[in-house]
């Protein structure tokens, strides 16, 4: 099977509050660029599907040079090819993104399985996989937690309310990956990371449509609570906490 994983890199989502500033429609800060965690889940599925079917996978990202983080990771995990659709960094209209990713995938010869993360941690759009499937006229399996090759298709497990659902799907199809038992991204070997740094990343000129969504304002949201600390040694902290819990939850720990 042939798979394509779309691997978006984002400013480290675990950066402490205040490390990312929002100014003139842009997110700025001295924060490392990392592969998005759900895109990491998609990449893991691509590796598994390629391995199990003795096929191959490719990696595609859209954006500026900051997108190298995820593409290099994909190369280190065995991607046959990495391609960056070159557009300016920052916000990009979601429909246009899906269109350009589709054009890039077609230029790579298409695939049996197209893998996206369920949501990237920068603009939190969570719509690219669906838009891509809609444009391509392919079935979309949302929130995939595990997938394995089954005959000519895939057996997938996807999140549903209160649990999960399993079943089979024919290819070609689009999967949006979530975190679950079968999608935790493996670590590449140090040697492969070094080799990946020397591999080329193909550039594909992005089209600038100018249509669609545009950012007209971006500002930090402020939510904070007036936190009070329970001080003292462990015993005093435990008693203070127990008291606080009793106050907040009537009827607990009523003294045995």
């Amino acid at each position: 099977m042939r798979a394509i994983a779309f691997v978006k890199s984002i400013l480290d989502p675990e950066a402490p509050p205040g490390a990312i500033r929002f100014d003139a429609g842009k997110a700025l800060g001295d924060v490392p660029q990392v592969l998005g965690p759900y895109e990491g889940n998609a990449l893991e599925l691509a590796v598994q599907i390629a391995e199990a079917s003795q096929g191959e996978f490719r990696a595609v990202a859209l954006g500026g040079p900051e997108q190298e983080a995820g593409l290099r990771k994909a190369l280190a995990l065995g991607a046959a090819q990495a391609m960056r659709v070159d557009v300016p960094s920052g916000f990009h209209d979601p429909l246009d993104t899906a269109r350009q990713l589709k054009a890039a995938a077609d230029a790579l010869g298409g695939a049996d399985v197209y893998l996206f993360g369920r949501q990237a941690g920068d603009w939190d759009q969570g719509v690219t996989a669906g838009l891509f499937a809609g444009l391509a006229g392919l079935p979309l399996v949302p929130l995939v937690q595990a997938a394995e090759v089954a005959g000519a298709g895939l057996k997938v497990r996807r999140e549903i309310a209160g649990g999960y659902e399993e079943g089979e799907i024919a290819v070609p199809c689009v999967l949006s990956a979530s975190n679950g038992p079968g999608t935790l991204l493996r670590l590449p070997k140090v040697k492969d990371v070094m080799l990946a740094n020397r591999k080329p990343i193909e550039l594909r000129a992005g089209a600038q449509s100018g249509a669609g969504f545009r950012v007209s304002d971006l500002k930090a949201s402020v939510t904070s609570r007036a936190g009070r600390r329970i001080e003292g040694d462990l015993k005093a902290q435990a008693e203070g906490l127990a008291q606080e819990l009793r106050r907040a939850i009537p009827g607990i720990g009523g003294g045995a």
Partner: protein
Amino acid sequence: MMRVGALVRGDDQSALEVLSLARALGGDAAETYLILAAPAAQHAAAGAARAVVLEGIADADPAQLLAAAQALIGAAPPDVLLIPDGPLFEAVGAQLAGSIDRPAARDVGSVAIEDGRLQIVKGAFGGKAEVTLDAGEGAVLGVRQGAHQADELPQAAPQVLEFAQPAPLLSGRRAVRDASGEDLGRAKVIVSGGRGLGSAEAYRSLREVANLLGGALGASRAAVDEGWASPSQQVGITGQKVAPEVYLAIGISGASQHLSGMSGSKVVIAVNRDDKAPIFAAADVGVVADWQALWPELRRALAGG
């Protein structure tokens, strides 16, 4: 004049909010598309309602919902289509948008039409920011639950369309209920654990806390990734959005993506050994302590009354 439509399934609170928003934006001309579960139940139908009835959609099958949505909106979709953000948008929103060549957005708080252009406000950067987008002349929008009021809606019998229900998305499908059985949505008390617990065994100690407090057990994404908790226990922007009376966060750093899911809680209590952990800025009460050391003392203190 922009054509405004709402696509809803059933008549829960989020459906009523979206129907109300569609009417506020599009007036009497707002179009309503209803997906009903058989047997067709009571529903609020605002404006010119079209409906299809799906048999046995307890698990909200994406392929069946998409086909129903496409049959409902037909060849002339409205410019703006509003859908409650949640399972329905997850299953069909963006794919429907792609199939009619429209952009899409979700987690949309406010929606306005100014000079014939759509203006939307949505969350970004895991809740660290809010972005206002000029969304042009049309889009499919997932409307955040609770962001709009549900108004009294005029009742009208919908026009029920003939609909050939396709096969479900997955063949040989089997639905499995989560073994943890936690009902975070309804719980008054939630005890959530994160990576800081360090082991599956330490995470299990929270079960005892939850039992003592009569609460349910939640988790951060990191605890799910470690395999200590199941995905349906995840609280956050891509997990459950919860608003209990008491939320107790143990060994959770307080990443904005986690906070987005629990900031509506009435009282937030955090235990973390790092006094600079961001969770403390989002908590009413904080305890700087190592959980492993605190737990035996807390158990004693709770039992001692």
